[in-house]
């Protein structure tokens, strides 16, 4: 039976939403992974949003040194699908699993609103169900979502088609309107917007549903 792990750090606060997304959209068991665990036996891993370790030092910095992240690194290097959302994305860049970094928004303020995104790669386990060029609406809620990387990293991202989502209207100053990227192998994806909050038209948009359906069909085909 398929299982998706949701990592819980002290200060994670989107863990319940990620678990609900897995259980309701994918109809798959969600397994909480504690930050001090050092093994992973699930078929995919979600690093949810929040303020791991209170964002002390820098968002994601302390979490990247936790026991579970050492396990996630091994898991990812073996091809396991990993997605980091918001603070999860910050943890992935701090851990070196994804290139670049996330700085303070150029407005210097927290930004919470619905944003329109362009899907720019459907080559990852999480975006197979989208069409390239498709527009989707997800909420954002972050203060440090300004993606930056050096010119050669950006060039590599572009050449390898690693940019997964771009903002239609850039809210935070991100380089090249980047909202989400993958690693070169495409099994690790990070994005600032929250697809797990976009699962029902009653709560404004259901555009996040295909992301979890993509993962499900990927797992069914590969596990």
């Amino acid at each position: 039976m398929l299982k998706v792990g949701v990592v819980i750090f002290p200060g994670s606060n989107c863990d319940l939403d990620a678990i609900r997304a897995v259980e309701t959209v994918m109809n798959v068991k969600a397994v909480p992974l504690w930050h001090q665990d050092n093994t992973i036996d699930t078929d995919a891993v979600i690093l949810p949003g929040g303020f791991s370790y209170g964002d002390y030092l820098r968002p994601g910095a302390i979490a990247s040194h936790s026991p579970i992240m050492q396990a996630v690194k091994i898991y990812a290097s073996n091809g396991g699908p990993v997605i980091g959302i918001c603070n999860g994305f910050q943890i992935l860049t701090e851990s070196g699993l994804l290139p670049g970094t996330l700085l303070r928004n150029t407005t210097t303020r927290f930004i919470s609103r619905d944003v329109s995104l362009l899907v720019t790669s459907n080559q990852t386990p999480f975006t197979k169900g989208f069409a390239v060029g498709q527009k989707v609406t997800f909420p954002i809620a972050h203060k440090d979502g300004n993606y930056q990387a050096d010119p050669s990293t950006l060039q590599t991202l572009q050449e390898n088609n690693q940019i997964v989502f771009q903002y239609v209207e850039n809210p935070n100053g991100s380089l090249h309107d980047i909202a989400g990227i993958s690693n070169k192998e495409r099994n690790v994806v990070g994005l600032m917007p929250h697809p797990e909050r976009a699962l029902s038209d009653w709560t404004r948009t259901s555009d996040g549903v295909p992301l979890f359906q993509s993962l499900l069909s990927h797992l069914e085909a590969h596990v």
Partner: protein
Amino acid sequence: MNSQLLKELNLDPHDYQEIVRRLKKEPKIVELGLFSAMWSEHCSYRSSKKYLSQLYTKGDQVIEGPGENAGVVKLTDSQYLTFKVESHNHPSAVEPFQGAATGVGGIIRDIFTMGARPIAGMDSLHFDYPNSARSRFLLNGVVEGISFYGNCVGVPTIGGETHFASCYDENPLVNAMVVGILDKANLRRSIAKTPGAKVIYLGAKTGRDGLHGASFASGVLDEDRKQRKGSVQVGDPFLEKLLIEATLEIIQEDLVEAIQDMGAAGITSSSVEMAGKGELGIRIDLDKVPRREPGITPIEIMLSESQERMLLIAKQGKESQIKEILGKWELDYAEIGIITETGCIEIFTGETCHCNVPIQLLLDPPENTTKPIRNPRIKTLVSNVPNCVPVEQTEAVLLQQIKNPNFGSKHWIHDQYDSTLFAGTVEKPGLGPSCIHIHGTDQYVGMALLSRGELCSIDPYEGAKTVCAIAARRITSLGLTPTAITNCLNFGDPTQEHTMWEFSESIKGMNDALSVLKAPVVSGNVSFYNEGEKQRIYPTPVIGMIGTGSLPNKPTLYFPQSGLICAVVGKTKKEYIQTDSIPRIDILLEKKTQDIIRQFILESTISSCISIDRGGLWYALVKSMLPKHIGLHIYKIFQEFTPGSYLLSESNSRYLIAFPSDHLDRIQNHLHGIAPLDIIGKTIENRFIIEGVMDLAISTIKEWHHQSLTQYFE
């Protein structure tokens, strides 16, 4: 007794005499400290108690009324909702960022203390107009503080209100409301039950911050008080997040018999109140209290208001399990005392006894006997917005109004709050009421938090009554039924007869509305002394109402499409807050209209519905038109009104509805004999037209609306 000490403790010499009389001895310094805190207005409600006891508080839906950390109402057979609003006005006046942040932290603790997960927050904020530099400093700091704390601790802030008036210059109001959800079995109270039970302290270490906070909030904000930044606490939302998770786990495992957060007056009030409610005693060993710094004295420990601390009374034999859970969340655990049968609070360091007084004495301060008498010399302050708008000025007046920070967009504020966490928020903030879906059920919870300070300053009875009616009207516009309310009663100096007149009139007004609306008061907070040296605030009772129900369709507050008939339900009269004929409320009519409107929504008779209240029809229209750029063509004949004066009337018990033309008969039949249906026009794409008067693009209206706050901050 040293008068300097009494001053420092903010203890009235008469109270001191009374303490000596009751104790039949001179109190020790720590004992005096406890009296100063527990007899402060903030902790004891000594001026308001007798009025609050008259409040309408009963109903089948009420599980826990006023007196607990928060009120509890029934949602379904297995789940309860708990909610409360609280003020943090004085700290925010002195240090807006930390004042607001710790205000949010405090109200969240009240919620999870009950065994509930906090799921949504709202704030009611009042400042001077933002053209004042101090007002901008306060607003910016308060919003950043709420954003900093609420976002990190993980409670979405889904709406609220922000008002500007010059009377809030010295005393801004910062009131925060939080709703939580709990399984029936997890409800916990703050009543000690078993002598011998261990008293456990968890959370942050105790420091010198927030010393005398309770007494700080129990006096007029003068120069001396403004210097007292030391009375303001410092918040750590990450630590609070750990406390939430650990506390809920401890409660889930059924390891405690009572629990209370350490709010105003810290260890003192939490220990005294828990033991007192159980008619028991408590013994505290101060050497066991985790401390942030050396040299902190017994009285400082007892009065510290360091944040993110909880006091719980363990079920016997469960201490090690509690310790284990706290260890998992990397939180301090300290057994600092024991529940006793003495009825006294005893405080020790080693063998030295610093305090031994009967708890019931601490809980029973002399009442404030100021008589409620109106002082006709106190003039009400009203702003001067025109109430009769000449036809040729319609467009200019309407646009100017929505650029006014009181009526324009508050997106500059809302965008700084995470409003979508938990993926249940139905609409983004800014439309009036907010609504969340309770996952795993067909239930929706509507929330409305509002006040009408200006109206209350003219007529506190009518004002308070109207606020309750509007809250229920907003809940109704979602298709939900009012369940219960919480209130935050912000007033001036309670030793002034006029203040107590305003207070007692407001209580009467609330009662007369709530008993008809069937929305009992289940929790609340009183904040007196909202006065500076120059000014007193409007009497500002803030009402937080929740409504519940299941919904067949997504609630739609704004116009969903063009081609719909648009109408006003209810009678529009020449009622304006700035004139002699202020908007009056007929509460029975209000209730009847609400019941019909709710039925329209639940039966899908109407396509959109929004309450007409503050700012009149014009403001309801702006909120209806902007979200989807669906405008309106008004072809109504205004008769005795000019278009502007019709659009700005604030008459009560009205709604703006839109519906397909084939539903007209049905709607008219239902409203017959109760409320008139005034058809004003048809929804159209992208434009707002008043036939022969004005024609504007929705994008133009949006631009003006958008600037209301950004013109001051960007």
